[in-house]
């Protein structure tokens, strides 16, 4: 019988080793800011409990199954053994204790994530509106009066308050290395505090399924020093073109766009948190008709887009890396 259990035991051990050694490579367990840090701590704390539970259950299973397997000279058979108050009480109480041990830090962390991180809570957070449109992200810096599409610049060591909303489907704003996600929904505003403690470029994305272009619904976050950020913001304000309403309406069409920068914001035309149907109306104004995915027209459009994408790729390859920042 031991023979049969071996795979399970080896496997369990392997997992444990794998977890402990591979941890630091995984983005969620390699946070670059206090929000992600708290979440990582909570995750690691729970993993130890879980490994302990697995160990107990596996050891007990292995022991019982081995000892009471049916064989010649089987000993200890007791068909009338059908309960034990003592044992049952034990395994009602232990899970209750574990649950409490997990619930307390969980609730603490939940509350702590509602506001800016402890270390920097007396700093004024930088406010950024993040608006999801199929399948691009529009970022608004109301104080700096600038707007970017599909990329973000943030200062390090300063809390950033994201005000999330969406122009169409429910999206989820997520930068794994900075911290957990939150939904962006049309007609409402959700708030998320994040902070970067290290300079660098972090990948962010929409992680809630929004249809055909969902996979590439991504953006980059660049964390930099305060001075660099201020410099970037004022240069952008001075150099970048203004965002016109026509241009903004075009952004409302489903599809991907490249990174863009503007010296004004869309908040003058609309705040999607107050006006849920703006994108739908803009599409109507532009004569956009949603296509049934299996119609000929939709297929032709898909082919067209594929070609366009290929062309862009070739171009960017011949021009070197177009990633300007």
């Amino acid at each position: 019988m031991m023979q049969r259990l071996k795979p399970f035991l080896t496997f369990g051990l392997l997992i444990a080793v794998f977890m402990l050694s591979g941890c630091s490579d995984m983005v969620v367990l390699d946070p670059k800011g206090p929000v992600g840090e708290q979440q990582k701590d909570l995750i690691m704390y729970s993993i130890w409990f879980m490994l302990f539970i697995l160990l107990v259950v596996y050891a007990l299973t292995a022991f019982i199954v081995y000892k009471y397997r049916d064989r010649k000279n089987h000993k200890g058979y007791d068909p009338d053994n059908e309960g034990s108050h003592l044992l049952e009480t034990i395994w009602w109480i232990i899970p209750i204790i574990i649950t409490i041990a997990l619930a307390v830090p969980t609730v603490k962390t939940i509350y702590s994530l509602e506001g800016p991180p402890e270390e920097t809570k007396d700093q004024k957070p930088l406010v950024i509106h993040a608006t999801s449109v199929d399948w691009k992200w529009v970022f608004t810096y109301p104080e700096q009066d600038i707007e970017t599409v599909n990329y973000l610049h943030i200062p390090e060591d300063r809390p950033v308050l994201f005000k999330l909303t969406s122009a169409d489907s429910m999206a989820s704003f997520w930068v794994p290395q900075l911290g957990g996600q939150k939904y962006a929904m049309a007609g409402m505003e959700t708030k998320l505090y994040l902070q970067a403690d290290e300079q660098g470029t972090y990948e962010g994305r929409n992680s809630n399924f929004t249809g055909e272009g969902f996979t590439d619904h991504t953006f980059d976050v660049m964390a930099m020093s305060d001075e660099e950020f201020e410099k970037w913001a004022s240069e952008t304000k001075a150099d970048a073109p203004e965002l016109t309403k026509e241009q903004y309406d075009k952004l409302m069409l489903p599809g991907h766009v490249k990174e863009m920068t503007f010296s004004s914001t869309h908040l003058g035309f609309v705040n999607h948190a107050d006006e849920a149907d703006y994108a739908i109306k803009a599409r109507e104004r532009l004569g956009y008709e949603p296509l049934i995915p299996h119609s000929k027209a939709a297929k032709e459009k898909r082919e067209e887009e594929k070609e366009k994408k290929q062309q862009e790729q070739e171009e960017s390859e011949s021009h070197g890396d177009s990633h300007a920042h």
Partner: protein
Amino acid sequence: MKWDEFFVTGDPLIYGADVSIVLTMAGILFYMTRYKKWKWLWTEWLTTVDHKKLGIMYIVSAVLMLFRGGVDALLMRTQLAVPEAKFLDSQHYNEIFTTHGTIMIIFMAMPFLIGIINVVVPLQIGARDVAYPYLNAVSFWTFFIGAMLFNISFVIGGSPSAGWTSYMPLASNELSPGPGQNYYLWGLQIAGIGTLLTGINFLVTILKMRAPGMTLFRMPMFTWSSLVTMVIIIFAFPILTVALALMSFDRLFGSHFFTLQGEGMDMLWANLFWLWGHPEVYIVILPAFGIFSEIISTFSKKTLFGYKAMIWSMLLIAGYSFLVWVHHFFTMGSGAAVNSVFSITTMAIGIPTGVKIFNWLFTMYRGKIQFTTPMLWSLGFIVNFVVGGVTGVMLAMAAADYQYHNTYFLVSHFHYVLIAGTVFGCFAGLIYWYPKMFGYKLNERIGKWVFWLFTIGFNVCFMPQYFLGLDGMPRRVYTYSEESGWGPLNMVSTLGGFMMGIAFLVLVYNMYYSFRFAKRETTGDAWDGRTLEWSTPSAMPPFYNFAKIPEVTGLDHFWRQKQAGKVEKLTAKDIKKIHMPSNSGVPFIMGSFFFVLGFGFVFDWMWMAILGGIGVIGTLIYRSFEYDDGYYVSVEEVLETEKISK
């Protein structure tokens, strides 16, 4: 509607499917006609109201759906095996994961378990049939028609692609145009009617039709789990019905319950969906718990450890299942207090679940454990399910879930509970009760191959996904970049997936092999069982189940009788005439009208929907004027069936 929107075209895979569907149909038509099987099919199967046959039809449909959903799964895994694969495009991938999820939960897991419940529960409680046999047939046909309607979407009109959760406004006309999403709405709506009816039917059956002496606390654990499941169904399914109806109004009649325009509220859909959806996952896990309880007790040769605690924990789980739905959207910004409450209620479900695990373990303690295939699946369940359980608790910790949510960590978790729980349970139950259904066992040696292939493949497939999730891989992406570094683990995962596919094929081969070669059972007690279903004299119970309704004196009545050497033998004077319900073709015809109705709504062809609706109502009216009270089986026929001489 143009023709290029009606038939799905342009993809060689689809043309292949078209051809194979037509060929299969032609093959069936030819075979049935050639061997004059139509009458047999009609009288024995399509019009039957026998719970055992309906159960078998449920299970056969579920196995077919497992195949369909499994092919979907392998297509997805193939696409994800390497970075930047070009096998499926985004739209196609989205359709496939949507149909995979929906089919697996609604048309595979639930019907599989309801099929087993159909076969076993009336036998376990010593009843001749369910409370409403005719209704039982209606349930089956609405489920079957709902499933078929949903399935044809992939060749006619195009499949839904908004995920099995169908979040609004993604699933609205503006963002998901065309018939696809309507298939989801009407396939589920029609099948849902059947599920709700099953809930009522079996609730009444279990409460009212138990053999004399079988008090609630003498019911076998599988019956108990079915009872609790039916209660959940009765409370949960009306929510789904309403939610689907509201979305149908949005899509077909321009209302604005969940849309972007007109003050629609997309969060309302998420709430309604999970108010049904979370209890739904318990609808598909509790009967599996019941199955494992029966099997572990039988093959340990011991009564269940902590019988009462098992029942109370189940009732607790059922109650809790309605109090945790918000854990599916901790990230919707409901605030710290709400998230804390739902975090704790969710974690609390782990407590009774843990209690059950320990009770199963101690059922084996001081037992005499036999490693039959059903027992292997049950042991495999314990070992693998706890992984799903503990990661469930991790997900329940809201602050941490902000990082796991919508990632492969979640995908792995729910497959560890759904596969190691529900699917293992379905396989275990199928093998365990196979002799009751067909009169012979499945081959044990091949069965063990299936178990090991499947279990190892399962872990190879899903264990890496926890790590992918922690590495930031979101669920529902159709491809990923080389730089993400997710390639190797995805490849491993795909290999595991194919291993499970092979295991499924071996399982089907086992059915064929055993049909041909297995030794036929001579008694009704194939496994030295403990509960009433094993007490029938013949291997397969006759259509009336019990010639004489048994009288029960305690838990595991049949087992204790056997121990005491006091199994009652039927004699001629025990036999009285038996009342049975008549077969009816009406449920099948009603189902067909439901198909017309659903198809009409899917394509927004109101004339067709109305025609179907009239048909459905017509069959209802017809039925209400049908004064058929069933018939009596004569004493002679019973004597002959039971092989008793006067």
